[in-house]
């Protein structure tokens, strides 16, 4: 036990993590508590630091393929997307349209998988065991599809600078169509089982309210900022890849509480399904790898490439000095900014609500620590 620093104060210091069931990894939060109430929550990071940025500066562009998936185990493809788009922009490499469509298709599938993972984990934080297994049943379908295409289930290493490593086949496309249909049938079940549930609503509504000012102040992105009414989504605000070709909405919700973030994510699953459908329909013929991609990719100059990952804005800042290795790589990961909200969000709330708030922020710790 850590001795109470000031015995005259009736507070208690509680170490939540680095091994705790609801910190989802190696996040440590030092809580100053007054009974069940959290007075102050101080997240302590770095337990899973693996120097991904430094590795990006040592390895060449192609060598970094494997790293991107290791940062975010939930949505590895979005991380790959940002990296290859950044390098392509710096080196002026043309990507065939088919490859870009495949990238969007697979990234959106991955986004659905990531949201399903979050859905299950959030409900697990709130004490419901069963929804995670239903969500994993669906997620498994996506992982099987992506495994068939890329050969791996979590860390895909699928995107290449100049395209993607292999073309989609009919089995994958048919599977994706079946998945869209299946997921549309399953979503009402999730809403009945969870969204309408009175216990869940009581746990999520009016808990952890993020105001617009707070979201802007801390640089929150993704469903967190969309949950408080700001329709900030890189896919629409700074369109990249072939996203302008698709017809989809950015779901928002005004309240800013855990329920809003929950609703936004559940609606995003539906929007991703729409993109997947359109991508399969519009998929152009052609090569999947650019023809003029040099073996040794030399690039110079610097650029900031932002994409919308499942958890928010993911940015790669690449500064290159003419060699095939970046001089400096900086990754702006979405969960890191979203986590910084935690301290302000959780002062004065119950311990149970802290768990609920943390779950609703959808933190992926390896991505925060990098």
């Amino acid at each position, binding site marked *: *036990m850590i001795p109470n620093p000031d015995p005259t104060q009736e507070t*208690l210091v*509680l170490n939540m993590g680095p091994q*705790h*069931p*609801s910190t989802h990894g190696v996040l440590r939060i030092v809580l100053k508590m007054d*009974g*069940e109430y959290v007075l102050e929550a101080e997240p302590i990071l770095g337990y899973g630091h693996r120097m991904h940025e430094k590795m990006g500066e040592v390895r060449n562009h192609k060598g970094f393929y494997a790293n991107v998936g290791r940062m975010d185990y939930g949505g590895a493809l979005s991380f790959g997307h940002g990296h290859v788009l950044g390098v392509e922009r710096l080196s002026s490499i043309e990507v065939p349209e088919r490859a870009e469509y495949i990238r969007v298709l697979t990234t959106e599938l991955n986004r659905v998988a990531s949201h399903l993972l979050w859905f299950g984990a959030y*409900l*697990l*934080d*709130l*004490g*419901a*065991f*069963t929804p995670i*297994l*239903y969500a994993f*049943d669906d997620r498994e379908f996506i992982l099987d599809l992506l495994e068939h295409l890329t050969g791996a289930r979590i860390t895909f290493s699928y995107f290449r600078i100049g395209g993607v490593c292999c073309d989609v086949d009919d089995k994958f496309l048919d599977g994706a169509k079946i998945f869209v249909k299946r997921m549309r049938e399953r979503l009402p079940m999730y809403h009945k*089982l969870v969204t309408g*549930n009175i*216990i*869940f609503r*009581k*746990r999520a509504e009016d808990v952890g309210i993020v105001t617009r000012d707070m979201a802007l102040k801390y640089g929150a992105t993704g469903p967190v900022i969309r949950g408080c009414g700001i329709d900030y989504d890189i896919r629409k605000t700074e369109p990249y890849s072939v996203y302008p070709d698709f017809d989809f909405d950015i779901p928002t919700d005004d309240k800013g509480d855990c329920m809003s973030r929950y609703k936004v994510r559940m609606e995003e699953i539906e929007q991703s399904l729409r993109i997947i459908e359109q991508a399969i329909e519009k998929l152009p013929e052609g090569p999947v790898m650019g023809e003029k991609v040099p073996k040794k990719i030399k690039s110079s100059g610097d650029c900031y490439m932002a994409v919308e990952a499942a958890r928010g804005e993911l940015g790669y800042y690449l500064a290159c000095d003419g060699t095939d290795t970046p001089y400096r790589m900086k990754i702006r990961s979405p969960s890191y900014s979203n986590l910084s909200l935690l301290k302000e969000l959780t002062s004065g709330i*119950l*311990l*149970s*609500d802290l*768990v609920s708030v943390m779950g609703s922020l959808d933190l992926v710790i390896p991505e925060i620590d990098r």
Partner: protein
Amino acid sequence: MSDLVNLLFTPPLGILVAVLLVVVFVFTNSAVLVYVERKLCGHIQRRPGPYEVGPFGILQTAIDGLKLMGKQILIPNGADRKLFMLAPILSFVPPIVAMIVVPFSDSVQVRDLDIGVLFVLSLAAVNVLAILIAGWASSNKYALFGAIRAVAQNVAYEIPLLISLLTAVLWTGSFKLSAFVDAQTGSVLEGANWFVFTPWGFVAFMVYFITGMAETNRAPFDMPEAESELTAGFHTEYSGMGFGLFFLGEYTNMLLMASIATTLFLGGYHLPFVTLGGSGFFIELMQVCIFLLKTYGLIFIMIWIRWTFPRVRFDQLMNFCWKFLIPVSMINLAVTAIVLKLGEL
């Protein structure tokens, strides 16, 4: 032969045999319930549950029990050793003792105390003491939180539990458990029947069932454990058989709660439409089966609820008790009293 039976089933030896039978039944019950719970939750989650050890995995609990017994009991530094060891026993023994007044059939009942209901309630209340001691003695902040929650929760939920049982007591006019069973014979058409079939009886039963789940610390009211918040709550520091006894205690408490519900509200060992007349071995056996069927039906619903819902928040739990259950049960008690009085006139 009949001499031997007489010797075995009459005092003084009879008491010992009966208590032994209860203990054996309680242990078997826990083993079966652990297996059933895991199997049910598995199927609800679309997986088979235990299935590797023995046919359909039925030996899984036996193996788990062996494993728990084989494990070292770790006592953390700074823990109150005596209290730490006492808590699991305190959580396990009272529900077993309380089982002796439960009437499984006409004659399968160890002791038919005149104050049966009070006896059960007073022993069931010891559970909270066990949790408090466990949490306090563990020298662990999470365990302490679990203990604090358990005390607040169990003390609050004791009130609607008592009031709902009082409704049944008013209706029967006795604290004797066999009197409740006798009052619920006959078929629906004849008038006298299960207490749950009357409107006030139904309300009292629902209140009792909900509070019973809270008293046994089952999800969605498993505040003292709440593994996503408090890692494992009050038994965070327990390992081996210490943990195992808490586990056994929980399942025995469930059984006790369900069998009291069966006795007081669901007609005990009677069927709703027919009266089993006469006596004899087969009638007794039938009665035991009916009783167990009802009891395990209730436990099945408890398990089903656990694997469906998220956990409620602590303040909501208390609000639900003080602002909903207690008023409802008190109104219900008043209505029952008035109706019974009017019926007498």
